[in-house]
Every structure is written in C-alpha cells, then in structure tokens.
C-alpha cells in the first residue's frame, strides 16, 4: 500500500506553518503505511558555495560535536550544524564531493540522507506520529514538503528502506506501488556507476532518475523516460528545490488526488489526508491523469 502526501505553498505567509499544516496530512496516511515514515522539507536555504546535508546516525547518542570538529579541521572550511534526534543537519562552505569523502573516512556509520541547498530528509521506522514527533515536524518552516508512510512489500522495514529517497542535489522521490523490473535495472544502473544501499525497489527508481539527470536529462525528460523503463505500478511524488512534481504509471492503479487553492497545491494518496487543510472545501480537487507529469515550481529559488 503506502501513502504519499505533499504540500507546496503558493502563499509565502504560510511558510512559518508548513510543518503544522503537514503533520496531520502525514498522520492521516497511517492506515496506508504504519511501518515507517519520512519527509523531505525544503527551506532555510544555504548561500551559493555552501551545501546542506542531512546526516543520520544509528543512535541519538551519537557524538556529533566531535565529528563536526574533526570535519572542520579536515576540510579547513567554515560549517554550521544542529542535531535533530538521531539526525543532524550540516551546512558547510565546501563542495559536496569532498564533504562526502571526508564523512566516509571520519564516520563510516553515518548515512547521508540528502544533499543540496534547501532539502532536508528525515525518516525512520515507526508510526507516522512517532516520526513526526521525533523530528519536531509541527514546528518546522519551509516552502514545500513531501512525505511518505510505508507499508513494506518489496524489501525489509529499515530506516534505509524508508522514503523519501534522495535522487541528487535537492531532489527526492517518494513512491506508492511496486516495481517488477527493479532487480535487472539495478544491475544495469550499477554498471553505470550508481550506488545502492538497499534491496528496495524505490531506491532503484531513485537511482534511475539520478542516472538520467546525470546524462543531461531535465526532470521532465527523466520522468518521461521512467514511464518507458520502469515496469510496475507507481505513483511518484518528486521534490525539487523550487517545487514538486507528481506522475503516475499508465495503468494508474495507485491512487493520487490533487487539490489547489490560491494558497497551496496539495497532493495525497487519499482525500482524507487533505481534509485538515484550510480552505479545502473550496479547493479545486482532481485526480492526476495516468502517464502525465504535473509540476509546480517557483520562478527562482
């Protein structure tokens, strides 16, 4: 099963309430996915030349302070960071690649959930309510957010198998459905140099999009190609630095509903998840058509 929710604010005055508006949407999808949950929130951008990474440790007791001190010494550049439960958000004045290399060397147990200038991905095992409380979702601010509640079918219930999956700088993917050609596709993508951490089918879709974007595809082109190359059932929501996109496979078994007002665009697997939004009774509500890309993006970051 699984549940997907997304909220993109058109009215900047609502940005201080993004987490508060989004938390009930995520929790409304508990029935569709009680195994794990996660979200990717966009906002609090770092300046050009800086990169923001979301890091996950296996325990809340992880010694971030020592790691950050070592990292600063190792790379010789300024950084800023804060801890959020078992995760930490690192903002660093450096290129992404050397930071990844340094982290792999200094703290091999740390996993990098996301990288970019805006995105933060936070996820874990447990009910959506536990995840949103663990990371303090309700008080978070930002411009847009996508989330996922997982009912696992294709692979193990782990933090790593939770959604969203990073697909590149400021890009992420959540998925409802199952892919039937993920095994073969993973092998092909590995040959192309794409790295995988789990047996999860969605990670293959994320890796596929990463690879297409590396080949020079625009997001639209990459998603159009995904309709040809991914076999199975899917509704995808894709977070980008400036907005979000929704696409369903041509059979479109997996549900999706969209709602738009002057203040926001919201997406969910079921209407229930939208019913708590302000002004929803006057929103334009519709089902996205199969094999059709819907995308909302701001003009600039």
């Amino acid at each position, binding site marked *: 099963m699984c549940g997907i929710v997304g909220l993109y604010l058109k009215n900047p005055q609502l940005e201080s309430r993004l987490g508060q508006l989004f938390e009930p949407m995520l929790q409304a999808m508990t029935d569709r996915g009680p195994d794990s949950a996660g979200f990717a929130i966009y906002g609090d951008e770092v300046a050009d030349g800086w990169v923001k990474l979301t890091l996950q440790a296996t325990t809340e007791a992880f010694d971030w302070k020592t790691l950050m001190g070592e990292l600063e010494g190792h790379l010789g550049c300024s950084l800023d960071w804060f801890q959020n439960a078992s995760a930490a958000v690192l903002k660093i004045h450096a290129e992404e690649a050397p930071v990844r290399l340094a982290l792999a060397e200094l703290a091999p147990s740390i996993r990098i959930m996301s990288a970019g200038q805006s995105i933060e991905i936070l996820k874990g095992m447990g009910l959506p309510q536990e995840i949103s409380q663990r990371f303090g979702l309700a008080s978070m601010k930002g411009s847009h957010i996508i989330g996922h509640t997982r009912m696992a079918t294709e692979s193990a219930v782990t933090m790593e198998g939770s959604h969203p999956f990073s697909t590149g700088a400021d890009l992420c993917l959540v998925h409802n459905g199952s892919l039937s050609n993920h095994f073969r596709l993973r092998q092909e993508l590995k040959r192309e140099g794409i790295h995988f951490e789990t047996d999860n089918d969605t990670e293959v879709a994320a890796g596929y999009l990463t690879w297409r974007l590396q080949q020079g595809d625009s997001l639209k082109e990459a998603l159009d190609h995904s309709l040809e190359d991914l076999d199975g059932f899917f509704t995808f929501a894709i977070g980008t630095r400036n907005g979000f996109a929704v696409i369903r496979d041509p059979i*479109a078994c997996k*549900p999706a509903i969209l709602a738009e007002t002057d203040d926001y665009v919201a997406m969910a697997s079921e209407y229930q998840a939208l*019913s708590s939004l302000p002004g929803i009774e006057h929103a334009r509500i519709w089902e996205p058509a199969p094999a059709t890309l819907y995308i909302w993006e701001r003009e600039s970051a």
Partner: protein
Amino acid sequence: MKTIDLSTATVRDLNQALHDQVNNVEDREWVVTHSNGKHNLAVGVNQAVSIDIQGHAGYYCAGMNQKACITVHGNAGVGVAENMMSGMVRIKGSASQAAGATAHGGLLVIEGDAGARCGISMKGIDIVVGGSIGHMSCFMGQAGRLVVCGDAGDALGDSLYETHIYVRGTVASLGSDCVEKEMRAEHLEELQVLLNRAGFEHQAADFKRYGSARQLYNFKVDNASAY
C-alpha cells in the same frame, strides 16, 4: 430525519445503525455530516431509506447497496457503489476509479467525472456520468448500460460482453472487441429514459452507441484443432 456526525460517531456506528433498519425502520431520512473522505460509508444498506452524505466520501461508499437512495454531496473515492444490487446512488462531484464495479443493478449517477475503470465488470447496473470517464472503463462489462455525457478514455469496453455503452463526446480508443454500433429506435428510447432519470438535459440523438463485436467471448470452433 436522523443525523449522524462522523466527527463524533464512527463509521461502524453509522453502518450498524443503517443495517439495523432492515428489520425495523426507525427513520426514512438519514444525514451524514463531517464525512471528510472516510472510507466505507453507507456500505451494505438493505432498506429503502434516503441517505445524504454532506461532504466527500472515501473508498467503497455505498458498496453492495440494495434499495437505498444515497447521495454524496461531494466527491467519492475508489469503488463507489461497488457491487450495488438495487437502489440509487448519486455523486454530486466526481468519482475516482472503479465506480460501479461489478454491480448488478440500480442506478449510479455521477454528475462530475469518473476515473479509470468506471463500470469494470458491470453486471446489470445503469451508470450515467455527466462528465468524462477514464481509461479501461467497462472492461468485461456483462450487462447494464453505461452512459457518458463527456468523453471516454483509452480502451473503452475492452473484452466487452453485453453492456450497452453510450458516449456523447469522443472516445480516445476502443478496447479489444468493442465496436461502434447503429443507434436504433429502442436504443434512443432506453438512453433517453436513462438521461431523464439521471436528470441530464442531453438528447439521446447526440450520443453514439458502442457494444461487443462478439468475436472474443465465445470459444471459436475453428480453434478446436489446437487441442
């Protein structure tokens, strides 16, 4: 009139109260408030009562309905009026996929659009859609009538048996063994009756009829030598 507020009562409370009407009709008119897209509203009703759902409904609303007249003043999720036997269900907004799936009887009116697989495997229900319908609609439709005042998506009537399909707008593509057929006097008459019952002002003459070419659903004796 009896009102059930789903911000305090559960869906189980609602359905049990409606099932209790089978033996003892307490009230003929029911109103459901704060539906907020909840699933399984007014499922398995088997009494001639009228039920107004004031808001959006989730999955499988009015499933297996017998005799009741159920109106959703909003949109309905997947599988509305699934396996309906008799009675009438009206959706004032739009319906998601598999509306009226496998239903044997009664009338389902969707004033807005219906999603994919509308009337899949329908077995005698009449469905009238004011707007358009999605792909794979009426797949393996066996009996009943499907009326579409707007357009139909891809693969309409794939592997069709004997459902009569009427479409006023365009058909993106016909499914396997579904063909356009001549609109004879009896078809114009049955269509006009359905449009009138559904409350739409369209003229039957503006519709085209589609049905089974009957090439697929019988075993062809020519193929007997394959065994």
